[in-house]
């Protein structure tokens, strides 16, 4: 240890103190009468000032001193805290922080001693208070009452006139390995009398009582923790080898020791892992200050509320999401929440609310930043998208509300009416998205016009410790995050026959009168290829009832082991494409187990169907209460038996034409329909993009084949026939689960009747049909027009 180590400790401690000052000052502004908080602020400043003096940073001490003076007056009740004073004090905190940075890089407290700031701070004292000299005296009194436990050196400096140099020398000796106490060394240096040391010790003892809480924690270097982690890993490996030997030796004593060691090593590993976990509150702590500054800067009133501060995340993740979160918070205040006048006009409280919420869900950590501001303007976003050339006008009109909201994450996409100093910093929402995605997270935005906006950041479990249910399937263990778990059901061998029924090949179980679809894990993971069907088994069946999105399903596994706290490790890129697993974890015996991604598994099994399209269809965000209206669809089989649909409104009639009635007009099929010529559009032709593949599709339909199924469409007053393979059904559905289309002529894929269905883009089909070799669309239309 050297002087620089002392300075380093001072810096770490001071940065923390400053962060606390930010929080406390903002808190005080809300409640200026809070004596307790005021004393806390005073103590913090005083500690910083005291240590600076001790280490010889005189400029820093000067700045801290004026701040302390002002605080002394506040504490005595001679002044009341107002926004001006808060701003000045926060300014001082920033100045101190700046100087600390300077010390960190150069070892000196810089050239600037902030005369203006000191001027302001002094000016804020009431004239008589500024003039009077009592402040300094009061300060000492306050010190006695409120100072944190001081080092013996500091007390001796005050009480016995020991010089800082002498103390520094003694501290150095101690750090170099001198085992004696500070007092003894000083006495030996003839810096102080033994009696003074005894007095000082007494003072120190009394003040120490107040700081018991801080004694229960110590500061540890993260590098050291990482090293510990590696060593524990080595221990586990060495132990595994011992285990193998002990198994072959058949010595009961050795086996007992080995087992015990196993338990200890596992626990040790888990505990060391936990040391890296930090509550998210650690980074949220600075947000009240951020919000205050931004709000003040743009003349807004904002209250910040926090829920789930204690949600724990790995340190590396905490670091990684700090900046994106800060940006989102600034953004909410700057763009989300309206000016007080506007809020009153809209019938809202002039003070806006900003709510930060963190919680574990679906094996991920969710962080929500919600405001009750004006919300996003869908029209303006669409307009902007067109202006920026991101989408065409038609595409923009077709974007769903959510897709539109998510446009804000595109680079260079800002709808802010004016560029403020907050938004003009070059950190856009796209950077937020990139940074969150870098750690495997997702960002999604929801908004209701006039009611506010919520940005939800989902971070993967990565390294988080979660409770999980461990199950066995075909000899391997799998962990299921407890959050998705609803209940466990066991069907004994004699109940299996009646307990599992079939709905057209899909096994279901009646759980309290409701049908629960069953998914066999071994089959979904293709563990036992072509293995026995459900129901017929004569063994007991274990069902894990899981929640995936808004659906429940039963997962059938071989054995249910136990619940465990597991440390989640992400899958490497080689396995990122396997959507059924969310991560992996090392189990107690050192073997690796995979963590099931319940949603991914449900999607694979078809319980929930949706492509996880990261841009537009992120799951679980449809929580908005504006469920789309039910629509009626005509379901039919298209080319290649694809399941397709059109809205029933678009359909005029369903017709069946024998192939003999089809005639050729150029290469276009037509038929006589109600005394007119009806052009027939073959879906397989328009959906096949490349023209040269059309060979074989040309010419008249082969005679003798079955009658053509034709949907007669009534589009813009023209009748057109659409040839499809088979009519399936007419159904009513919300069709609100969408994903982007995978081929032309399709608007998007939707869930209709719980199955993925392609919704046809009728205008696009009519348009492309007109360019298919054959009669021009005009003439076809002309013929059709006659029908009306």
């Amino acid at each position, binding site marked *: 240890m050297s002087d620089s180590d002392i300075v380093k400790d001072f810096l770490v401690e001071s940065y923390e103190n400053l962060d606390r000052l930010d929080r406390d000052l903002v808190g005080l502004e809300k409640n200026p009468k809070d004596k307790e908080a005021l004393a806390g602020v005073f103590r913090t400043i005083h500690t910083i000032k005291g240590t600076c003096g001790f280490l010889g940073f005189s400029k820093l001490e000067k700045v801290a001193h004026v701040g302390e003076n002002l605080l002394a007056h506040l504490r005595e009740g001679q002044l009341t805290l107002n926004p001006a004073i808060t701003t000045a004090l926060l300014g001082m905190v920033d100045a101190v922080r700046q100087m600390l940075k300077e010390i960190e890089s150069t070892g000196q407290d810089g050239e600037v001693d902030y005369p203006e700031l000191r001027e302001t701070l002094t000016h804020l004292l009431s004239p008589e208070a500024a003039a009077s000299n009592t402040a300094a005296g009061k300060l000492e009194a306050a010190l006695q009452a409120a100072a944190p436990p001081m080092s013996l050196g500091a007390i001796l400096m005050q009480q016995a006139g020991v010089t800082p140099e002498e103390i520094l020398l003694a501290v150095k000796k101690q750090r170099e390995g001198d085992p004696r106490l500070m007092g003894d060394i000083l006495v030996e240096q003839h810096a102080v009398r033994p009696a003074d040391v005894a007095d000082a010790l007494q003072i120190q003892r009394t003040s120490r009582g107040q700081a018991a809480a801080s004694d229960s924690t110590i500061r540890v270097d993260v590098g050291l923790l990482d090293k510990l982690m590696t060593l524990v890993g080595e221990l586990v490996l060495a132990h595994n080898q011992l285990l193998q030997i002990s198994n072959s030796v058949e010595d009961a004593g050795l086996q007992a020791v080995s087992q015990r060691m196993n338990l200890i090593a596992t626990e040790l590993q888990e505990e060391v892992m936990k040391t890296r976990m930090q509550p998210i509150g650690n980074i949220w702590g600075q947000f009240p200050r951020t919000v205050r500054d931004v709000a003040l800067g743009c003349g807004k009133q904002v209250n910040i509320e926090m829920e789930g501060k204690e949600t724990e995340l790995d340190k590396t993740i905490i670091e990684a999401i700090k900046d994106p979160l800060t940006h989102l918070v600034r953004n909410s205040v700057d763009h989300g929440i309206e000016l007080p006048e506007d809020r009153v006009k809209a019938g809202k409280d002039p003070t806006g609310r900003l709510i930060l919420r963190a919680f574990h869900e679906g094996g991920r950590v969710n962080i929500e930043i919600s405001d009750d501001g004006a919300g996003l303007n869908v029209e303006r976003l669409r307009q902007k998208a067109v202006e920026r050339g991101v989408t065409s006008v038609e595409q923009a009109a077709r974007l769903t509300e959510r897709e539109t909201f998510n446009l804000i994450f595109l680079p260079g996409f800002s709808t802010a009416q004016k560029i403020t100093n907050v938004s003009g910093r070059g950190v856009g929402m796209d950077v937020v998205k990139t940074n969150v995605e870098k750690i495997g997270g997702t960002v999604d935005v929801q908004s209701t016009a006039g009611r506010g906006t919520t940005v939800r950041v989902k971070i993967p479990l990565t390294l988080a410790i979660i409770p999980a249910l461990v199950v066995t399937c075909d000899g391997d263990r799998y962990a299921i995050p407890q959050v998705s778990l609803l209940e466990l059901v066991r069907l004994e061998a004699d109940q299996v026959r009646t307990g599992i029924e079939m709905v057209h090949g899909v096994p279901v179980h009646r759980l309290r009168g409701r049908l629960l679809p069953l998914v066999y894990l071994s089959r979904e993971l293709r563990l036992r290829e072509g293995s026995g069907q459900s129901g017929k088994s004569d063994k007991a069946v274990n069902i894990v009832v899981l929640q995936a999105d808004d659906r429940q399903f039963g997962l059938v596994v071989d054995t249910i082991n136990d619940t465990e706290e597991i440390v989640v490790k992400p899958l490497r890129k*080689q396995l990122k494409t396997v959507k059924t697993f969310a991560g992996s974890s090392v189990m107690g015996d050192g073997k690796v187990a995979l963590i099931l991604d319940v949603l991914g598994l449900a999607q694979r099994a078809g319980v929930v169907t949706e492509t996880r399209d990261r841009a537009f269809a992120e799951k679980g965000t449809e929580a908005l209460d504006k469920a789309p209206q039910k629509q009626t669809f005509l379901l039919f089989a298209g080319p290649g038996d694809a399941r397709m649909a059109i809205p029933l409104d678009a359909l005029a009639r369903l017709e069946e034409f024998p192939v003999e009635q089809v005639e050729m007009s150029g290469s276009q099929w037509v038929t006589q329909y109600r005394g007119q010529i009806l052009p027939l559009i073959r879906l397989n032709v328009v959906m096949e993009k490349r023209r040269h593949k059309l060979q074989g599709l040309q010419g008249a339909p082969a005679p003798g084949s079955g009658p053509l199924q034709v949907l007669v469409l009534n589009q813009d007053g023209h009748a057109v026939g659409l040839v499809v393979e088979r009519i399936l059904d007419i159904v009513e559905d919300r069709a609100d689960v969408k994903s982007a289309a995978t081929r032309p002529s399709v608007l998007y894929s939707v869930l209709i009747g719980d199955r993925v269905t392609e919704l046809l883009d009728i205008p696009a089909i009519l348009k492309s049909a007109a360019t298919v070799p054959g009669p021009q669309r005009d003439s076809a239309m002309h013929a059709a027009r006659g029908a009306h």
Partner: protein
Amino acid sequence: MPTLQYCTFYLDRLLFGVELKGVQEVIRSLEMTRVPLAPTVVSGLINLRGQIVTAVDLRRRLELEARPPDALPMNVVVRSEDGAVSFLVDEIGDVVEVEESTFEPAPEMLCAGVRGMILGVHKLQVRLMHVLDTEKACQMMEPAEVAVARNKLGA
């Protein structure tokens, strides 16, 4: 003349080498957890002192004949951009020191799937040592559906 050090190993009687500085360690066969539905070249996951490492079967990756089921593979753990990856190989060879002058690019006739992974060969006295591109060997082919989805997003 600058020399390079290679950690060598055998795959189906062919000699391969990866640059020694990219090798974290070489260990004997470890217990492996299979990953259902994973690309076939991924043999499973191993616990390397608390660190979970993906094991890539280099024989499969390099489109060689499958390893006899009774032969226990060795692990060559290499550092890749995305953390440690373990290559499963038949047998470990010596550390060899070669001069750049003995290097020659691989012939064009190498089959397409493998060409990018084998940078070339060093002509040792008695045999040829294939130089493996670690990063390329760690990269997996994406399932077609993922590639399609990505194209669609323009990402």
